[in-house]
């Protein structure tokens, strides 16, 4: 398998072929990024979630730092679908990468309608962000209930010919249940996954640190949890799993791929090191070369068993 030519980084996500497995996580890039890095080098460009209506998002302060992680409570400040079609898509027209929209809504019906409304040839796939509250279920997130998840995803798949990807929430017991629902509903991929619900308290001030009290925990601290979920889901479904959570570079991306991911999404790291994604693409190419792999897709699921020696002491020679 050792090869001298540059490794093939392309990966297939359902009916799409991406030139490499690295893309941003929804809500963590915007047009500003095009002023810092060449977004055309990415496997895809995932846009921020939009809702059918205009939304303000949550009360500030919206971010708190905690060790190697952040808590964000942004809500989904949304400018609506027309803004997406008229302003956001053109803003990336010059970037040589497929655009992935992300949608959310208050009801399963509205998820379907929104998917239909934005079914535009400039959009290569639509992510379903099901971490948001279901108005018909007392605000419990769609993504925490398999049946609500199924209804949302089936409606979206029925409403559009654009491939639908399901972005799962990690705030569940057994995530494989949800991955299977997505597969059955006809999604072409699952993203595993969104932020983990957390909270931060200022002991001296005796107050929460976020205006919204709770927020999504993101960044390196969550990687071991999401890596485990990716591993579980990759064994549970045939459709590609896209890993997301705490990726800070190519090495993290490869860990997700070894655990079973076909591609990865980078979130919070974009805020700190804007070149994370493009550098990860280069790192993966180098990894393939070092490990004698001719294609990045060979990394997916290539985790070998840890042949724990009968006694574990290291041969310290």
């Amino acid at each position, binding site marked *: 398998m050792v090869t001298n030519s540059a490794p093939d980084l392309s990966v297939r996500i359902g009916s799409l072929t991406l030139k490499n497995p690295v893309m941003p996580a929804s809500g963590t890039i915007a047009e500003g990024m095009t002023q810092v890095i060449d977004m055309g080098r990415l496997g895809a460009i995932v846009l921020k979630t939009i809702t059918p209506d205009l*939304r303000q998002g949550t009360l500030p302060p*919206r971010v708190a730092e905690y060790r190697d992680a952040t808590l964000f409570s942004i809500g989904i400040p949304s*400018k609506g679908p027309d803004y997406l079609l008229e302003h956001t898509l053109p803003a990336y027209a010059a970037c*040589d990468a497929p655009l992935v929209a992300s949608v959310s809504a208050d009801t399963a019906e509205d998820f379907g309608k929104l998917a239909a409304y934005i079914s535009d040839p400039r959009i290569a796939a639509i992510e379903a962000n099901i971490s948001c509250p279901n108005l018909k279920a007392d605000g419990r997130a769609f993504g925490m209930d398999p049946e609500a998840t199924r209804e949302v995803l089936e409606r979206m798949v029925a409403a559009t010919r654009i491939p639908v990807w399901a972005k799962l929430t990690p705030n569940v017991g057994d995530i494989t249940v949800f991955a299977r629902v997505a597969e059955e509903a006809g999604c072409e991929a699952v993203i595993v996954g969104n932020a983990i619900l957390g909270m931060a308290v200022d002991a001296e001030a005796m107050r929460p640190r976020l205006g919204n009290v709770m927020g999504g925990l993101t960044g390196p601290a969550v990687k071991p949890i999401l890596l485990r979920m990716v591993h579980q889901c990759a064994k549970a479904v045939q459709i590609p799993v896209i890993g997301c959570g705490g990726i800070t570079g190519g090495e993290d991306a490869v860990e997700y791929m070894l655990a079973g991911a076909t591609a990865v999404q980078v979130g919070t790291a974009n805020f700190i090191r804007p070149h994370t994604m493009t550098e990860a693409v280069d790192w993966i190419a180098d990894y393939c070369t070092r490990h004698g792999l001719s294609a990045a897709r060979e990394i997916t699921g290539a985790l070998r068993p840890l042949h724990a020696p009968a006694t574990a002491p290291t041969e310290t020679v």
Partner: protein
Amino acid sequence: MPDTALSPAPEACAGFPIEEALCEIVSNDAVNAEYRLMIARAPEAALRARAGQFFHLLCPATEAGQPFLRRPMSIYRIDPARGEIGFLYKVTGKGTRGLATLRPGEMLNALGPLGRGFTLPADTRHVMILGRGVGLATMAPLARLAAESGAAVTAVLSARSPELVMSRGELEAAGARVIEVVDTDGSSAPEEMEPRLAALHAERAFDYIATCGSNRLFRLARGLARSWGIPGEIALEQHMGCGLGMCYACVIPVALPGGGEEYRRVCWDGPVFTLEEAKGW
């Protein structure tokens, strides 16, 4: 209060005007018990910073660990001739304590220049600057900008006590007339400042006010601007994630001309807002 502010027209996949500038520290010394001034040699892109813009700094680790997020810091000095930029900062927590450890010759990773700075109206003749605390850092380049465009500057520096007044030299070097007001003798109280500023206005009319760093000064500035019928701006702060308009963490509500309010991003739509948009806090 929807977040509908339009983003500046994107220059997608074209040039990359915002850079992770690697700046070599020239000096990084205490200016008083709380504040430090850091001067760094910066690449050309960073030297294009304008008054009111900021950089997002990757702060070095301390025993408390590596500050995870970057920290926003206004540009305090832009010296294209020497190829230097400067920051005036207050040592507050993990991030700024990390900045304080930087020694000459070490490198600082500064993402920027970021945000929308001050917009001096054409033909401005007399600028009033009202600054306090950290807010002064933002004001120094504005004084230079005003001087370059031929306007006079009167800078009123407010502080708790005389020894905490900062930036006098920087502002005077930029040609500003400097007036100090302090809490210790009561001269910083708005009731005291207002007649004094009105007298200055009567002497030589102001046609633009800029302020930063204090809610009291903001209210005073807005009141004066309204009564004199002149425009004014304020630089605001908010906790940030990205500094690049991407995460929507740094929002503040601004008043809309027709009534009502909406959230704007301090990092992208600001940090400078008009006195009419800004809301007290």
